[in-house]
């Protein structure tokens, strides 16, 4: 009998789990790698740690990196040469912004800065409500990804400039997905087939955990308000190379005079998007999952399914502010609820 059970176990049963937690990319990143070679795992995690730090510095909108330099330059129409990775972020974002009807809009960096959500890991930060006039002034200037022009110069290579001085790029709703996608690619180059990268609750997996699928719990937004609620709402088993990304209003927010102000800004109103508590996206491409979770959060209960279709997303769960849970049919087939809920399946 024992032999029978052993025979049924997958080949790589004996692979050891190597885990490390990193403070990087403005969040906590947990890396889990299955390998029988501790040195291989350690070197891989070291490499990812260095790469996360490098990309965070390069893509930060306001520090001293390449993106911050580009943002300072956008006030003038003079083209500048920038990092190829930023050109790639811009190109991908232009496409995704169009697909989302402009709901995913990294060009509103100045608006996000007004709300100070770029300052969350700054120790001296203290939130104050932005002036309504300042928000309206930025909205009237209508910064969009289409304002960014990529040109090619024979002497300087690819260059960028903006046709709109109100543009500043903040890839906070995209960079984490792109970074995770890059890191998974690096692990595969090192012949690591089974791993999980979890950056602050957004994650992608490779392979499985010794033959059993990576099993992910989805946090219950209600638990943030009600400690008697169950902390985990649902569970899902992920397949090779699947990503699970969530945008929620319940972890990064401020309350001023009883009003809840979270970090997902609606580019149409200039204020935190209303009507949604969280959106969870399951898809292979982590970068797409990141952008889509933000776009669908902003789209809200009325529009999310149209935007999901346009962005090519099949697996969606949206929890509305009124606590209704909406699922796409594909998500309904994968998700296991752990509490008594009655989700509405939208076809």
């Amino acid at each position, binding site marked *: 009998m024992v032999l029978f059970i052993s025979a049924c176990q997958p080949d790589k049963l004996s692979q050891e789990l190597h885990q490390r937690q990193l403070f990087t990319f403005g*969040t906590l990143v947990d890396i*889990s790698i299955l390998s029988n070679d501790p040195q291989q795992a350690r070197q891989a995690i070291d490499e990812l740690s260095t790469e996360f730090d490098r990309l965070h510095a390069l893509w930060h909108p306001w520090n001293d990196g390449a993106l911050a330099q580009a943002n300072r330059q956008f006030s003038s129409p003079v083209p500048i040469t920038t990092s190829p990775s930023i050109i790639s972020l811009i190109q991908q974002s232009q496409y995704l912004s169009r697909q989302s009807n402009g709901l995913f809009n990294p060009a509103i960096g100045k608006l996000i800065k007004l709300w100070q959500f770029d300052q969350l890991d700054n120790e001296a930060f203290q939130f104050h409500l932005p002036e309504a006039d300042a928000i309206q002034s930025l909205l009237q200037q209508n910064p969009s990804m289409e304002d960014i022009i990529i040109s090619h110069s024979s002497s300087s290579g690819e260059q960028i400039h903006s046709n709109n001085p109100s543009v500043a790029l903040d890839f906070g709703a995209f960079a984490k997905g792109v970074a995770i996608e890059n890191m998974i690619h690096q692990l595969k180059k090192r012949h690591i087939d089974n791993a999980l990268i979890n950056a602050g*609750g957004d994650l992608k997996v490779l392979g499985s*955990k010794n033959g059993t699928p*990576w099993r992910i*719990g989805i*946090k219950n937004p209600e638990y*943030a308000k009600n400690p008697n609620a169950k902390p*985990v709402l649902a569970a899902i088993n992920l397949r090779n190379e699947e990503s699970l990304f969530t945008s929620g209003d319940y972890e990064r927010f401020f309350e001023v005079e009883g009003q809840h102000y979270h*970090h997902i800004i609606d580019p149409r109103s200039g204020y935190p998007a209303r009507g949604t508590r969280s959106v969870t996206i399951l898809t292979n491409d982590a970068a797409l999952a990141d952008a889509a979770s933000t776009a669908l959060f902003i789209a809200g209960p009325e529009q999310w399914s149209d935007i999901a279709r346009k962005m090519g997303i099949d697996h969606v769960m949206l929890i509305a502010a009124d606590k209704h849970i909406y699922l796409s049919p594909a998500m309904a087939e994968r998700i296991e609820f752990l509490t008594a809920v009655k989700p509405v399946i939208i076809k």
Partner: protein
Amino acid sequence: MKSTLTFAKTSLNAADIIILFLACALTAWIYITFWFGNHTSGSAETLVLQVAQQPPEEYSLQDDRIIDINGPIGHSLIEIKQGKARFIHSACRNQFCVFHGWLTTPGDTTACLPNRISITLKGNLSEYDALAGGQ
């Protein structure tokens, strides 16, 4: 009263039945442990406390206590009570770590990013490999 059961030409006495029962129970235990091991729900047993650039420290969730820990910008206070853990104070201004409230589930984690301190719950039979959501 008969003390044996008869199956075809084989008869089982009370000792045989006990052995058979124990074998079945062992089979069930091995099957659950080795086949469904990761999926058996479990409670959190340990708090893993990490300060950046330092090795993680572990604390039993069975012993109620307050942990006073220093990070780069000052003190953070972490409370362990009745198998749960939470930040009750941190030197940061935004206090997201404190607002997060109690961690109760293995795999759940929160951090004071400005003070570079994280807490994570761990259990021997964690139901989840990670918790998704939030940001």
